[in-house]
């Protein structure tokens, strides 16, 4: 096929430098007397509402010997409450065409529903009943232990490189509350008792430790009336919540763990610790991560996958956390002979380049463009808007940060990016989990 190239090629940079994209996310917020914080984003485009109930508790609130409990508890929240029998929650949700799910991180546990707007009270009825008084049986606890153990097998144990989170946390956080993986250990999951369940519920599942967000076809006024109706009578708790603090000592030398596993090819996963989410430096490192390893034209992907062809996948990304964040830099070998020293040297070369030479103005502009686009995409769904508002309140007491964070990205300069590269990606701050191929596999 021979087709003349008709359209003129327009220089990309000149267009992209146009005025920045505006992103609007209007919201109202208020507190109920019992401490429940409520946020509302009204948007009537489609008759649906996203409801997000988020508790400020995660795996970092667990105790040794009870790891995985926050996540197991998340499963139990679907197993019955005072007025809803076991199985009732999902049955009622299904019967109205709603989508619902939940997830647990080291820092938070989120429950969310996407519902037709004429059924919003049903979601609030169910959420408030399980916040008020959940009623889980011993049998339900035992079944959910099995389900969670199957989840761990499916997502970790039966997958190549599946123990990465567990091994990485042990290495990076030798002492602190981020030491164990969210899913926990099989032994600890088995050890959970009904007494643990009750204590966890009474401590953390209280309105003054929760946020309720609405996004979609609901007015702020109606949201207030319904929030008061369904959640207003839930007593707040006076039990003090102990917030774990960052307890790991500053890292002074590189740390490495080598794992011989049933994996198809060698792989190197490096991690550098960063300040907590929201810190200005974390935004600068996030831009650095984009430049290093987001997309085919990023430095690491271009060098390792395209030019050198030693990796099938390589990149970098930031994982943010309430007490501390992480920069992940990784390379998976293209074949068995691309070994740890080769992959490590190739990644280290790119890190050394950003430490010494920094990044270009064009690279920084590209990273900012990517953040801007991602932010606009995030506003597309009601669920995404509710989640962003809730999260920004829970960790920053500022729902507006869901969109205003773009200003933090825009403010970062190439000097900032080079400074954070030197500060946080120093060789002595490196943690590496190296996978080698088990002999005979």
């Amino acid at each position, binding site marked *: 096929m021979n087709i003349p190239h008709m359209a003129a090629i327009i220089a990309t940079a000149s267009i992209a430098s146009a005025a920045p994209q505006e992103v609007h996310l209007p919201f109202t917020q208020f507190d109920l007397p019992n401490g429940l914080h409520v946020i509302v984003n009204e948007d009537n485009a489609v008759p649906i509402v996203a409801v997000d109930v988020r508790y400020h508790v995660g795996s970092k609130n667990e105790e040794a010997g009870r790891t995985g409990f926050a996540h197991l508890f998340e499963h139990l929240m679907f197993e019955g409450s005072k007025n809803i029998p076991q199985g009732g929650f999902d049955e009622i949700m299904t019967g109205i065409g709603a989508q619902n799910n939940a997830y647990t991180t080291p820092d938070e546990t989120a429950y969310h529903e996407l519902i037709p707007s004429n059924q919003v009270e049903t979601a609030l009825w169910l959420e408030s009943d399980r916040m008020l008084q959940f009623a889980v049986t011993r049998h339900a606890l035992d079944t959910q232990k099995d*389900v969670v153990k199957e989840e761990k097998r499916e*997502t970790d144990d039966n997958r190549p490189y599946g123990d990465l989170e567990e091994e990485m946390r042990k290495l990076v956080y030798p002492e602190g509350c981020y030491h164990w993986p969210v899913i926990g250990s099989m032994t600890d999951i088995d050890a959970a008792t009904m007494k643990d369940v009750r204590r966890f519920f009474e401590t953390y599942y209280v309105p003054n430790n929760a946020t309720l967000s609405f996004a979609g076809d609901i007015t702020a006024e109606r949201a207030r009336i319904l929030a008061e109706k369904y959640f207003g009578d839930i007593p707040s708790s006076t039990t003090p919540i102990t917030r774990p603090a960052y307890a790991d000592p500053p890292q002074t030398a590189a740390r490495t763990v080598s794992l011989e596993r049933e994996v198809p090819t060698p792989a190197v996963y490096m991690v550098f610790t960063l300040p907590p989410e929201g810190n200005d430096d974390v935004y600068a490192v996030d831009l650095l991560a984009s430049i290093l390893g987001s997309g085919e034209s990023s430095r690491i992907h271009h060098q390792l996958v395209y030019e050198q062809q030693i990796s099938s996948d390589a990149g970098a990304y930031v994982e943010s956390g309430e007490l501390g964040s992480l920069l992940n830099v990784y390379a*998976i070998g293209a074949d068995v002979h691309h070994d740890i020293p080769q992959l490590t040297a190739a990644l280290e070369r790119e890190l050394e380049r950003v430490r010494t030479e920094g990044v270009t103005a064009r690279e920084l502009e590209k990273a900012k463009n990517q953040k801007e686009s991602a932010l606009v995409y995030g506003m597309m769904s009601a669920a995404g808007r509710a989640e962003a508002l809730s999260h920004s309140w829970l960790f920053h007491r500022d729902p507006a940060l869901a969109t205003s964070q773009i200003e933090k990205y825009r403010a970062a300069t190439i000097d900032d990016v080079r400074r954070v590269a030197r500060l946080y990606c120093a060789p002595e701050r490196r943690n590496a989990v190296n996978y080698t191929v088990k002999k005979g596999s």
Partner: protein
Amino acid sequence: MRAFLAATLAGVLLATSIPAKSQMLDRTRPPAPGPEPETTFPPFSERTLTNGLHLLVVENHKLPLVTISVVVRGGASLDGRLPGLADFTAALLMKGTAGRSATEIADQIEFLGASMHAGAGWDATTVSLSSLTRHLDIVLDILADVVLRPTFPEDEVGRQRALQLADLKQMKADANYLAGSRAGQMLYRGHPYGNLATDVSISAITREDCLKYHDTWFVPNNGYVVVAGDVTADSIARKLETLFVGWNPHPVALPKPPGVIPVDATRVFLVDRPQAVQSSLRVIHEGVARNNADFLALDALNTMLGGYFNSRLNASLREKHGFTYGITSRFDGRAAGGSFVVACDVRNAVTDSAVKAIIVELQRIVNEPVPDSELTMMKNYVAGKFPLTIETPQQVASQLHSIELYGLPADYYATLGTTVRALTAAQLHELAKKYIHPDRLMIVAAGNTAEIRERMAAFGTVDIVDADGKPVVH
């Protein structure tokens, strides 16, 4: 920080005045729903460009975003003697054109915060692009370039070969890939859908093969474009007319694949993963093509069996037995045939018990009509979720894609709720008897054969291969 303190104080104050029981809301009964909202399928426009390319547009100006998919019919079902060719060709579209190198394409798209992907499914090759509206002209120019003027540079063919071989190596370590691909290969034996890419076929693909695939099938009258988002139908049509000048129609004859051979007896196919702690399971038999008149009703029937969290299969295998983290079933309808498939991952020790529990549910739905309460729940689910399925222009675009690719009626999704509401338990029972066959199943498990083999033999003859598809002799 101030807001945080205020909230905490309010909480503490109130804790001393917990409302008395009488002030508690009566939560014993569910709240009455409000009036059902009026929801209609968003309007979309259709037209045919001068070169025969069909264009479907759903306008939505809420956010400054546009998504465009250029689709060419045929996909991997046209791979012929080189399984993987369509996808290989698709990947190479973005690896060099008359005006841009692979590196330039990736850099220009990513610089704008846009994204572009190209890949082949069984029935079509799709190049899709998402971008902020303000960069539309630049990214459209790149899109037209990769679809119309790819050059398939020899060095990029070599890179792509190495990359796809590396990807295949990773995939062969994935239990889900092994089970799913083995199930497809066995069910669709002798059919293009059973034609799996292998190390051998990927290694054999040349630049000439890609050029030929592109020349033969990338023809405007063999394709269509779906656009969703912040554009007007007229303006995007004008832009595409200009960009596609010189892309001319010529006759295309898509081959008609043979029918899918029905499964004749229950058999077991194992893929050996010696260290596996779980079996990835597929229970499969032939189904129907996507445009079969019964498909919609079968999908409704399947919703109750394994289509939502409250399905019979999930209630049994997850909630009752704790065998799995989750189980689903579906009628997978394609252009030239389809399958019925149940999928889950279960621990080694309960692999055979899980299969038995699955068969129990298949028998139950064939032997007894569904009770009214269950039918009502499913109908309410389908009606209730309708507005959720048209929230974003991208969701609507994906439905237009199904309408166009499989030749469904234009009002298929708009009338779906009404059609489902009219279904009766007796009708669904007839369909279950006709299309679900508990007595003749392919049972596929990728797992630890040493641990599961003996008990799986209770279901039928056992065939074992390794991750490379080579027979394993025990």
